[in-house]
């Protein structure tokens, strides 16, 4: 699949401190790629380097095969983004802001402006000054301005920060709609694990300025998934059978299910063993969460 964003050994040093170092990322067309990391991990620094706000100390960035630091027009005309919080010209209306900012990429018509405002639910406020907007409305207006130039890649830096639960849900749904219905590639940074679990197809984990894991979310979570939850009936009989299997360790059991630890790749075998003994297996799923994964991969990462 075509690579729309690629970074190679990307690094940024401020004085003696490296904010990001040796960042190798690859975002493919159609991905909802999440860049996960705690606050201060180097997510925004990386995004700023990708979008030319910061000059990299080391490494290169390629957007659609072009280096935005050298071939700006070719690289950035297919990309749009919001870095940190979306800020607009407060003394201008929403529609005027979109017209002005959109015109930096291409000629924008009034109909196009109204169309993107409708998509983010701001039609009624089109002619109001942005200074009267709430944070959530500015966030939606930020997405509207990103959509206005019809980009192939949208880069969003913590797009749900500061939003209320409904606002977060709206933004997540919008992101999924853009990816699935309009075929846009989304690069999303976040420190919210739940957000990434809900929307991402691929991800990279950054910690202390370095990428510590990268790949498809399902692959990364399945790699070392050894803890499982079982919903079975009858529980007591299932427990007896499980205890006879030397490669299974029972972690906990209750009226509704059993928690077990398996040797890698033996989940199907456990299921078969239970079913052949007449146990009804309603569910067998890895208990491992993104949070577990994140804590594991970031544990012991070196200082840079």
């Amino acid at each position, binding site marked *: 699949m075509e690579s729309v964003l690629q970074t190679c050994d990307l690094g940024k040093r401020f004085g003696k401190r490296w904010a990001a170092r040796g960042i190798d990322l690859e975002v493919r067309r159609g991905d909802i790629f999440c860049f996960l990391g705690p606050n201060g991990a180097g997510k925004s620094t990386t995004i700023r380097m990708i979008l030319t706000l910061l000059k990299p100390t080391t490494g290169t960035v390629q957007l659609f095969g072009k280096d935005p630091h050298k071939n700006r027009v070719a690289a950035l005309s297919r990309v749009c983004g919001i870095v940190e*919080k979306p800020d*607009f010209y407060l003394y201008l209306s929403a529609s005027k802001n979109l017209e*002005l*900012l959109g015109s*930096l990429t291409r000629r924008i018509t009034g109909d196009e402006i109204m169309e993107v405002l409708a998509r983010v639910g701001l039609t009624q406020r089109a002619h109001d000054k942005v200074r009267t907007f709430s944070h959530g409305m500015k966030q939606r207006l930020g997405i509207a301005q990103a959509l206005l130039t019809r980009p192939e890649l949208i880069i969003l830096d913590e797009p749900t920060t500061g939003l209320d639960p409904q606002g977060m849900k709206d933004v997540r749904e919008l992101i999924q709609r853009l990816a699935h219905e309009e075929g846009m590639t989304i690069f999303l940074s976040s420190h919210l694990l739940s957000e990434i679990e809900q929307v991402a197809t691929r991800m990279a984990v950054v910690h202390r300025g370095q990428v510590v894991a990268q790949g498809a979310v399902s692959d990364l979570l399945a790699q070392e998934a050894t803890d499982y939850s079982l919903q079975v009936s009858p529980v007591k009989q299932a427990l007896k059978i499980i205890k006879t299997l030397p490669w299974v360790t029972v972690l906990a059991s209750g009226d509704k299910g059993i928690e077990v630890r398996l040797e890698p790749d033996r989940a199907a075998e456990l299921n078969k063993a239970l079913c052949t003994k007449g146990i009804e297996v309603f569910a067998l799923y890895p208990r491992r969460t993104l949070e577990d994964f994140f804590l594991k991969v970031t544990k012991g990462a070196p200082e840079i």
Partner: protein
Amino acid sequence: MTLFGFEAYKTFSRWRTYISFGVLALIVLMTEIVMRVSAREIVGSMMKPFQRDFIIAGNIVNAWFITAFIMNSLHFHIPFFVTLVAGDIVSSEATAGTVRFLLIRPPSRQRILNAKYLTALFYTAGLVIFFAVLCLCLGLALFGSGDLIMHRLGQFSVVFIPEAEIPLRMLLAFVAAVWSMTVVASLAFLFSAMAENSIGPIIGTMAVVICFLIFGNLPLDFFRHLKPFFFTTHMLLWQGFFDRSIQWLAIGQSALILGMHNAALFFIASLIYRRKDIKS
């Protein structure tokens, strides 16, 4: 919309842009009204040293005289108004956070900076032209026309310029005034490109202008030697158009020095801004 149109629209959509025009209008209006009321005493005190040797008759206090008189204060108040916009034009994007939208678009930083610089120059020219038109229109309405008789400040001489020559000289003087004020705009622009807020560039520019004006007027040999290199010295080049015979060479030299200042200041601003890391 062109980048220049984009910048000009933003600049002229802000009410603070018009503060300068409003205050300038007030200054001109107040000065001309006071002059209208007390013209006789003012002219009397200005011409006192010459009254023993000359008989001065006719409409001395006319629109041209008033305009030239008010122009003498040009290098005090206009620089402040110029810095209000030129010192804010780049740095305000960082303060407002809009720089993060602006600089991730296809146009290069240099092109954006060019558009902003052109807008700052456009505003500067607009301000001086507004000042000129207001002075002359109000002056013609309140005082009428006539020959220009001027006492050059700090000199024991009176300059007489016939009415027919004045419009062209006045036009050239205002063109020179625009040119001199562009250096203030360039200086403020440089500070604006370096800063992340607007206060620093505005105060910094005014501090530089005031310091150079003070140094240039201190009766000390050290500063007297340096005075020809101060841009503030050459900012008064417009006065050359009210000499008995226009000293084209001196005016040209001053214009060239100011132009070199403009080029150097803009070049440094570009160099800094192109390499600047946007952390705001």
